[in-house]
């Protein structure tokens, strides 16, 4: 319950400056800094309504904030589903600053734990490793592995939470790059750096490291806690390159703009705690693939069956006596849990729900469109049966928002809570799936091949 209360607080947290700045920035200057722009009167947003109350304005702002998080890219593009991500955490002196509550370090570690859980929830067949930097040395906390408990245990360990000295960006990136070199080509190679300091203490030329990262196709993203650093910006720009999304060219220069978190941000500087969490969690959905090389492979994977023995036997992952487990189909050794790589023969072992968890990244739900009063066709939400307002409030025109959001495919109308729920948690439009109209066509676009319509949907787990 405390988890839910905390979430409610997050939702209700409305920062007027955020609401103003980002909206205006996306329309106006590209690449400008806030001190170069017009002086903003953020207090003018709060206008009292006819009865002298502010509550409706605040509610409206809250709704806007809620929906703004939703509008994301729903193009069906190739995404790197099998990911290998290194999380680099800066443990230098600068992380003891208390400008983020309770301190930068504690907040980073809290969010890192939530990040690990969420990452494995959304990408079950991916791997994660953690590197920390302090005293000019990079230390590998955990290797690349698919098991979240190892990472969580390492993050909880008190010894790993001490800060000292200066960070060294080059050492951390070299270490990450060296491990990522061994990753097979079908997996994506990513590094996510949480950087709190303004300096770096490197043994050599960081541009050599940048060149090597580019050569190995490693993609680096930054979350800056202090301010924007030119070297970091260059790093992100060089390693990400340009990529096309359905004909729209989305330049990475836009991504390195510190206040802009609506795009697939690869460099962001945090404004406040909530923004920090948003930036960090942006790395969780699989990124679109940049077609610089043919990275697609048929990966051999095993689907083990569960064995229910009466007598305990040894497992090969921990060498402990356990009752029951999974049997690797290639070498018949017993494994405790999935997904994992078999320790004996190296085969990737998954079960079909793990693959199914990633399908919603490939077939996302279209964003719902706001319906003005002139276009309403129902009095209650299709999914949860909440009653809508039946007529516009006095003073609102026919084109103002009626609180209804409609799916572009099935044209059913939903309330704002269902809209958020469908896009963030459920990933199914109830209208489309309850009406049977558009089930069988799925289009998968990739940059080089033409769009393909397929009628075959996966039929898995059928025993007959």
């Amino acid at each position: 319950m405390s988890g839910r209360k905390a979430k409610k607080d997050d939702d209700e947290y409305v920062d007027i400056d955020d609401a103003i700045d980002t909206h205006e920035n996306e329309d106006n200057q590209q690449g400008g800094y806030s001190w170069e722009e017009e002086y903003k009167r953020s207090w003018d947003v709060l206008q009292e309504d006819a009865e002298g109350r502010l509550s409706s304005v605040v509610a409206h702002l809250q709704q806007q904030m809620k929906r703004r998080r939703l509008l994301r890219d729903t193009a069906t593009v190739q995404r790197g589903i099998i990911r290998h991500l290194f999380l680099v955490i800066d443990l230098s002196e600068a992380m003891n600053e208390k400008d983020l509550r309770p301190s930068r370090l504690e907040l980073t570690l809290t969010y890192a734990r939530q990040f690990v859980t969420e990452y494995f929830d959304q990408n079950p067949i991916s791997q994660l490793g953690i590197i920390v930097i302090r005293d000019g040395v990079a230390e590998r906390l955990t290797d690349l592995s698919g098991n979240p408990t190892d990472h969580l245990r390492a993050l909880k360990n008190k010894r790993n939470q001490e800060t000292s000295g200066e960070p060294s960006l080059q050492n951390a990136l070299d270490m990450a790059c060296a491990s990522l070199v061994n990753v097979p080509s079908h997996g994506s190679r990513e590094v996510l750096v949480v950087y709190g300091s303004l300096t770096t203490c490197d043994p050599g030329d960081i541009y050599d490291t940048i060149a090597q990262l580019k050569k190995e196709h490693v993609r680096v993203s930054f979350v800056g806690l202090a301010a924007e650093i030119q070297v970091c910006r260059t790093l992100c720009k060089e390693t990400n390159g340009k990529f096309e999304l359905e004909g729209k060219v989305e330049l990475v220069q836009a991504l390195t703009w510190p206040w802009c978190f609506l795009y697939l941000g690869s460099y962001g500087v945090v404004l406040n705690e909530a923004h920090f969490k948003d930036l960090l969690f942006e790395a969780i959905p699989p990124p679109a693939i940049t077609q610089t090389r043919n990275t697609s492979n048929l990966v051999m994977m095993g689907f083990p069956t569960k064995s229910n023995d009466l007598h305990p036997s040894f497992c090969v992952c921990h060498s402990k006596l356990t009752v029951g487990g999974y049997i690797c189909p290639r070498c018949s050794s017993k494994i405790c849990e999935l997904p994992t790589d078999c320790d004996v023969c190296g085969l990737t072992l998954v079960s079909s729900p793990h693959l199914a968890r990633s399908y919603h990244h490939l077939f996302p739900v279209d964003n719902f469109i706001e319906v003005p009063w002139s276009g309403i066709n129902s009095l209650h939400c299709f999914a949860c049966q909440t009653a809508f307002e039946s007529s516009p409030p006095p003073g609102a025109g026919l084109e103002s928002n009626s609180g209804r959001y409609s799916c572009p495919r099935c044209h059913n109308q939903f309330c704002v809570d269902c809209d958020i729920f469908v896009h963030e948690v459920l990933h199914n439009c109830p209208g489309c799936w309850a009406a049977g109209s558009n089930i069988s066509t799925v289009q998968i676009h990739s940059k080089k091949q033409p769009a393909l319509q397929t009628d075959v949907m996966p039929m898995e787990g059928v025993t007959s």
Partner: protein
Amino acid sequence: MLDTATSEDDTNLLVAIVDTNPLAWQQSATAKIPLSLDDAIRQILLFFNAHMALKHDNKVAAIASHIGHCKFLYPVTDAETHRRQANPSKIAKDANAYPNFKDVNDDIIESLRSLMADTDTPQKNLNDGTSMISGALSMALCYINRITNQDDLGRIKPRILVISVSPDSPYQYISIMNAVFSAQKMSIPIDVCKLYGGEVAFLQQASHITGGVYLDVENPQALLQYLLFSFLPERYARNYICLPNKEQVDFRAACFCHKRIIDIGYVCSVCLSIFCSWSPVCSTCRTKFAFRALPPLAGKGRPAISRTASPAPSTAASPGSSSPMSTA
């Protein structure tokens, strides 16, 4: 997964998804042990009454999963209630009936009647005669989300019961799994009562992943007994009562090319489709794959000539593994 602790004082919300696929019910009514939709609904309504009788604030919702669309049977919207109250002739006042139960029963019966009488349903694809279970699950989850958000005390503990007579529909696999993972994240168990229609692997996986009860009813005439014994206990009581579930759920996948269940398969890294043998092009997303070095053929000496498109060596034996032994 949310760690929600249950207690005796919880309010339990039961969202029941009733499969009203008329084709399957017709077959069930003429099966060896017949059970028609009328008999089944009578027993299901008694079960709802029993659920509401356990505690004064237990709640019920019912969704019908029909062949072309889904509909809420209970609770009905205000507009619909007004319309029904305008026709008082259908509903007789009975002094001996407990009004709470009677309201629920009457609303559900009336909604079902209008559902069955309505032959106007837009059915673009008949979807091989299966009901829209994924749409019903999605609507149930949205309704639960709304009730949970309105509940300030955190006392409402929802669960979903699916009463199913139709076979699996492969078209709905992805959406059913999406709904199942959402239910798992929200700690909502999905119970399945299978009356007729053979093995349903998707619903078995659903109940296994969410920790719900799965029951294959052998004697459908005794449906009420099965419901009261296996599906009535609420989430708190499940800590203490041993309920049936399917021990051996088959999580293996079927290959896309032959629909055979496979132990080892090849997965396209772009669209995650599964094949039983290697091919140079993925048939779903038409991605061309890089040729790998073939392993040396036994007894023939030299390995086949290979063309590697990517510099990173990727043999079949170690996909996706970065062992600690590799030099770093």
